[in-house]
Each structure stands twice: as structure tokens, then as C-alpha cells.
């Protein structure tokens, strides 16, 4: 609840707050959502590696969800009770997905760490061996 007692971030002109500014914000958010939608479709048609495509599409979807929730559903103006209720629900849904993935042989955290260590090792391989030290292992 915004402004305790004022509904929905309510800000009617009669309440002394300029409504046109709020309407302008809605239109800007609409523009952002439209651009993000086009971006999602554009990325899907690009020849990106599958994993990268999935990550980008999900990040864009999360950004759109954030914009709709924050501005259209006025969550940013709500109190702790509603925000926490929504956060707990989202956390439970994430648990439903993430905690089952290892059972499928998918270990997101381990894979991310492995990718990172491979990237770092690859970076080291570009440097000449330190005098007296062992040359970095090639992968």
C-alpha cells in the first residue's frame, strides 16, 4: 500500500499530486516492455549458443516481470506485508525448479564454477611461464 491509506500508489489530481506524471510513467514502461519483447524475439533468431540464448531470454523476461510488478501492480509502493508475501512465493517457485535440477544431472553452480575455472586457466595459458615456475597446463 502506497502512502498508507492512499490506494494503489494513488495520486489523483484531487489529492494534490499531478496525475499526468503517473500516466507518463505508465507510457514509458509500456515502451520499455515493447522494446524488451522485440529484443527477446530478436535474440531468439540470433545464432547464439543455446545456453546463452536461454539465459538472455530469461533475464529479459525477469526484467519485464519486474517492470509490470513494480509499476503496473504498484509493488514498489506497497508495504512490507505484501512485498514479503510475493517474495516468499517467488522463492518457493525457485526452490521447485532449482532443487530438482541436480536430480537430472544438472548442477548449475558446479557448471558455472567449472566454466569460470576453465576461463581463468585459459587466460593463464596466454601468459609466458614465470622464470623457474612450471608452465600453465594447456586445456
Amino acid at each position: 500500500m502506497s502512502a498508507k491509506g492512499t490506494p494503489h500508489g494513488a495520486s489523483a489530481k484531487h489529492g494534490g499530486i499531478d496525475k499526468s506524471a503517473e500516466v507518463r510513467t505508465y507510457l514509458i514502461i509500456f515502451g520499455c516492455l515493447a522494446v524488451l519483447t522485440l529484443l527477446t524475439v530478436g535474440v531468439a533468431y540470433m545464432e547464439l549458443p543455446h545456453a546463452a540464448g536461454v539465459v538472455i531470454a530469461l533475464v529479459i523476461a525477469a526484467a519485464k516481470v519486474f517492470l509490470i510488478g513494480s509499476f503496473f501492480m504498484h509493488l514498489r509502493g506497497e508495504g512490507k506485508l505484501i512485498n514479503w508475501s510475493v517474495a516468499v512465493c517467488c522463492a518457493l517457485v525457485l526452490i521447485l525448479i532449482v532443487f530438482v535440477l541436480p536430480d537430472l544431472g544438472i548442477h548449475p553452480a558446479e557448471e558455472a564454477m567449472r566454466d569460470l575455472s576453465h576461463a581463468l586457466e585459459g587466460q593463464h595459458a596466454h601468459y609466458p611461464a614465470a622464470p623457474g615456475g612450471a608452465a600453465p597446463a594447456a586445456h
Partner: protein
Amino acid sequence: MSTAIAETNTGISNAKLGTWSFLASEIMLFGGLISAYVILRSGSAHMVVPPRSMMGIPLATFNTFALITSSVTMVLALAAIQEGNIARFQRWLLCTIGGGVIFLCVKAYEYQHKWEEGITISSNLFGSFYYTLTGLHVVHVTGGLFLMAYLLWAGTRGEFTPESHDRVECAGLYWHFVDLVWVILFPILYLL
């Protein structure tokens, strides 16, 4: 509205708290189905995803725009009633209903074509999830349209004022949620 808020312990009107509780249960309903889809899509050999050319991405993109636009017109309708402008409120509400109807019409066309191309609810795991997820969403859109029609009717009877428009606010929350669900369904069903 302000009187009702003053009477509650939480400082939130009962209508709004009830709506958010309902939406919380809806998050778990769609969340459960979406997580099942994601898990099976990642790990099941029975999940045969049709090629993109069969999925009708341009139509689905158009539908996404229709729903996003209807979400904006809904929030503009709320802004209008908060200003006490009934005529504008009804105009924006009609636009919202129009967006929802366009979405349903396109969906019906899409279902017919998918069915003809062999993507049915019993064709494989993808078909089951596609029709279950989008079908459940269509049920929600249809319910939302009835809600909007009711608001339009109540608006003509002069039931909403800048001080009392709880029902418009709660219906708006529901409609934005329906839009939000589609924003997630669109990439995971059509684009990935």
C-alpha cells in the same frame, strides 16, 4: 477506501489483501506447472519440441503486444477513475476488453493451426504442457474479461468514485498478473 483501511490491523484494505492472497496462490499454481515444464524440458527424452516454424512466433509476439497494451489501458482506466473521470475510465476499460478479446481470437486461430499441424494435447509431452499452460492462461484471460465487463456495467451505474474504487484496483491487479504470466510463458514455450 480510506475508511476501510483505517479499520484494518494491517493498514491494507481487506479487498486488496484478499486479492494479493489469491494472487499468491496463483503464483504457486502457475509456478508449479512452469517448474515441471522446465524440469522435463531439461531432462526428459519424451519432450520433443516442434521446430520454430511450426510455433507461429510472429502471431505469439503480436499476442504479447495485445496483452501488454491491455495492461497499460487497465492502469490508465484506474488512473482515470482516481481522477473521477468516468467517461475516460470506460473508454480505457473498453480498450482493455478489446486487447483481451484480440488475444483470445488469436489464440483460437493458433490452436486450430497447431492442431492441424499435429501438435495436440496428446501428441507428446510438449503438446501436453503447451495446451495445459496456455489453456489455463486462456481461462484466466476469459475470467478477466468477465470481470472487466462487470466493471464497465458497474461504472455506468455510477458505483465508482475517486474515493471508492477498490474493485477496479483489485481487478487491475488480477489483469496485470495475467499479463505477467504470459510474459513468462511466451519465451519458454515459443522461443527457447
